[in-house]
């Protein structure tokens, strides 16, 4: 198993997440896709750490931070989604178009 395998897995996950973020109509879907992108980065961190820089576990430590940050973002994001859902009764991103121009 070479490093490229892991990185390619990360890249693939990243691309799928990217696609989801761009196309899912549901805001929660977008959120989930972004989570996938975070995970892609995490795979990279750990893989690089393991393959190239194994002496210091910086990559893993960063991954811990990332997971936490992801959690924080999801919390805020979901709260926002709920708040707006209560008013508009929709979770579709294209319905949020009061502000434009």
């Amino acid at each position, binding site marked *: 198993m070479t490093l490229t395998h892991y990185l390619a897995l990360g890249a693939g996950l990243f691309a799928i997440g*990217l696609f989801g*973020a*761009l*196309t899912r109509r549901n805001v929660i879907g*977008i959120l989930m896709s972004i989570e996938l992108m975070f995970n892609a980065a995490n795979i990279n961190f750990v893989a690089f750490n393991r393959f190239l820089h194994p002496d210091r576990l910086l990559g893993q430590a960063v991954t811990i931070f990332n997971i936490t940050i992801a959690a924080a973002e999801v919390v805020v994001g979901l709260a926002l989604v709920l708040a707006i859902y209560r008013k508009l009764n929709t979770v579709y*991103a*294209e319905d*949020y*178009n*009061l*502000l*434009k*121009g």
Partner: protein
Amino acid sequence: MIDHAYLIPLVPLIASIIVLLFGKEGPKSNMPLLSIGAMGFCWLDSCSILYKALTHQVSMPYPAPSLPWFTFGDYPVSLGLLLDGPAVFMTFVVTLVSLLVQIYSLGYMHGDTRFKRFYAYVGFFTASMLGLVLSSNLLVVFACWELMGVSSYLLIGFWFEKPGPAYASKKAFITTKLGDLGFYLGLLLLFAYAGTFEIPMLAQRASMGAVALPVEVATAAGLLLLCGAIGKSAQVPLFIWLPDAMEGPTPVSALIHAATMVAAGIFLVARTQFLYAASPLASDIVAWVGLLTAFMAATMALVAYDIKRVLAFSTVSQLGYMMLGLGVGAAGYTAALFHLTTHAFFKALLFLGAGSVIHAMHTNDMREMGGLSKKMLSTSVTMAIATLAITGFPGFSGFYSKEAILAAVYGHSPLMWAVALLTAGLTTFYMFRMMFMTFAGNPRDIAKHDHAHESPSVMTVPLWVLAVLSALAGFLLSHTGAFEALVHLPEASHGGHHPGFLLWSALAVFAGAAGLSYWLYGRGDFAVAADLKAKMSPIFTLLENRYGFDDFFLLLVKGSDVLARICFWIDERIIDRVFVDAWGLICLLLAEIQNFIDTLFIDGAVDLTGTVTGWAGGGLRGLVRGQVQEYLLYVAMAASLFAMLTLIH
């Protein structure tokens, strides 16, 4: 007084400014007296100078002091006087005519609401002419030249409430201005080559031959100055303003035709004689312009019914004579200036007389006159004297001057002489026609005739003074040789002998023309003349239309109007658009590109057309449609672009 000759233009100028600014306006204003007094002073001054010159107490040209005016670059320009023979004579004539005209106007303009202003203008007009005559500096000459244009504008349009004068004054100004452009360019050319405006210095340079002043330059400058003269002196083709200028008060016409405006052109050509001497081509053109003018104007006078227009055409014709004289060499030069002097007297007299008639009849049309000799004796007698003078009746002043020109022309070219002689015959014919129609026969408009009466003495006295001068000036100046002594070119041969048949042919032509005139117009009814007119109507029409010159210039004016409108259209519709709306265009273009990209990628295949139309006006705002995933897409596009970029590296 000769050291203070600068006062001659200055005093009337100041007087005119005082009159204009500080005088009380009104029909009974006293301000005219100030103006007349100033002119009287000038006349006396010019008399004393002339006397000194004639008696050789001073040598001509007299070195008058000059005043530094200004300096531009390294060129100093000064205000100086050029007191030579022509200037001295001209000053005398101008001041005298102006003085008489002003006195005459006391009667003629009496009761006008702008009485005072008239005098202010006339004073200014005369002052400009005097400045032109006396100045040694061609720039000042030009300045005075233009100022005269303005004064004539003001005076021709003096009765501006009527549309006629208002139009005529503008026409006069613009037409002469067209010629002035030539003068202007000539001035530029001369300065560019010689670096000075001083006439003596220019003359000196010209006398140094082609090294100092190349022939082409002399020709060009000469022709350009001639353009100015053509405009001011109403030569072909710019004579069109002069007949219209009759719309002004008659004394003004007298002034314009006798002493000021039109004389200026002749005088300018005389002053810059050195250029024409250096360039035979320019000289020839001067002669031909003069001849053509003389002949054409005379023919046009044949068919005019307005008494002032007849006189106007006669002026043009006589000026053509002078121009012709100037173009035929040294002898012609003296003769032309001599004719200018004598012409001043009898033309002033003719106009003032005509003014007297108009004053009495309240009409200009000769067909409504007739039989006035009984009612207006002084006027008719003095007019008759003037007519004899202008037609060259032996002994009268015109005889001497005109003969001199004819002789000079004969010496130059017999063909020209023949045409000139024919023109003299025409002159005789139409002048007598005018006299007959006005004064002889029976009154044709009884009501007006009954109303008519002789003018007051304030008007007739100037007539008599001028009549005396018209009769005698030629004899006095010619026989004593006084004129030629002061006014001649260095290379002129004195007392050249002319073949005798010149005189006899002239007399024969005179007699024939006068007789023909009597046959057609002198016998009470104009049946023959009317018959003739009916038979030759195309020619009459052509003459009455002034050979179509007016129409041509009207066309020119119309053309420039159209051009102006086109220019303005271009300005508003094209240039403004290009430079202002270009921004809008760029924005629009950017927006369109944006739309294109959006349509291509974002909408995919989904309702392409609707979006395009929907966004067409949206500009860049189309980019921010409130769709968060589109925002994401832009970010992602940038990121993918980055990814591609790294590959290129």
